[in-house]
């Protein structure tokens, strides 16, 4: 019962994230929405596994937590640098460049 209530709450939170992803206004808002949506998805998957009596499917939640990160970094990098191939600079690189 409590688990079902938790799943309902997570679905509501996911719906709000979808609204933010559709509304924007900036692309960073959308990336934020996707990232947060992904975290909520991980939780929902874990809950659903317990709700349906097959908690072995937590594997999928683990993979979400990992892939969500890759996607967020790809989107962030795309919007910030317009490239997928450039390395991300460190402070040391930057200081070397500016002396």
């Amino acid at each position, binding site marked *: 019962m409590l688990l*079902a209530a938790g*799943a309902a709450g997570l*679905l509501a939170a*996911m*719906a709000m*994230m*979808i609204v933010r*992803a*559709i509304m*924007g206004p900036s*692309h960073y808002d*959308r*990336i934020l*929405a*996707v990232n947060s*949506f*992904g975290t909520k*998805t991980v939780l*929902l*998957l874990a809950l*659903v*596994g317990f*709700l*349906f009596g097959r908690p*072995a*499917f937590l*594997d*999928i939640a*683990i*993979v*979400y937590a*990992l*892939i*969500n*990160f*890759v*996607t967020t*970094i*790809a*989107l962030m*990098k*795309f*919007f*910030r*640098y*317009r*490239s*997928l*191939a*450039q*390395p*991300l*600079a*460190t*402070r040391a*690189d*930057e200081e070397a460049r500016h002396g």
Partner: protein
Amino acid sequence: MIAEPTFFDVNLAIDIVLLVMLLVVAGAIVRTRSLLTAIILFGIYSLVSAVWLVVMDAPDVAFTEAVVGAGISTIVLLGAILLTRGEAERGDWRRLIAPALVCVTVGGVLIYAATGLPALGDASSPVNAYVGRAYLEAAPNDIGVPNTVTAVLASYRGFDTFGEVVVIFAAGVGVALMLGFGPRASLAPPPQVMGDHHVVLRVAAKLLIPLIALYALYVQFHGDLGAGGGFQAGVIMAAAVILHALVFGLRETMAAVTPKVARSVASLGVLLYAGVGVVCMMNGGLFLDYDYLFPPHIEKEIPGWLLGGPESAHHWGQHFGIMLIELGVLLTVAATMVTIFYGFAGRSVDDAQREAKR
């Protein structure tokens, strides 16, 4: 359990909420003109449909959809946008009338046809009562693998899966031929990124990349027992390589996993898959008939305890056949996805101009 679902069935309630979310997101994709927004929304669409797949008892598919839909296809689409442009033209609204009419008509016909389908979850429908049930009953005895999806995928329908792997390989070759195998122009130095320093990201990525690769291997070898298998593991492995390229730069990644290695491994996977089939034929069976993977005089020598008790000894061929072809799938899928990523990320607009001059 009630045969007819009511709204207060938790399963059905989650199912319907998720489908409504899918409809809303799809509607937003139709409306938006910005391709970037469309790609982000498509990522959300994949996430929602993956949760829906878990609710619908298809964890293997959910695995694949999660990694492919939310991960790889988003990145491939971003790579394509980089080489084209981010906005779609606004069409004349009068030109939307004919497509809308077609879609409404076809959709109406489909919905009308859907009313004749068996209700959701009908255990006696032809799909569920005959072939699906037959696989479930026969697989533990024939194959000896708990995950029926893997048993059907790798053994009963092994030839079909071989075809799919060849298609993936061919698609990778196609992309590589069209876009090249990686950066051919010299990569420009990183753009001026004042105020950005990504130490946190680099450290976290260093921790995460080996973990992702390790997890891919877990998914690979756990595929007999639970959700997982070569397709999923291959895409996860490719995601690890792609994360490395995103954070440390494509050039560094290409030094570690050279395009040559990627394309050799892709062919090696297909070769391994086909090789297992040919070995079965040489031992007197049919193509991919794993019961003939080992000749009888060798199989007699294998101690039963290797696979947990003498009763499972007659599944030796099946176990090893499935493991080998899943390994082939892993190699091909991972290497193909990496090749595709190299193709998109390594191409720059300069390449096109240079080619045009030639």
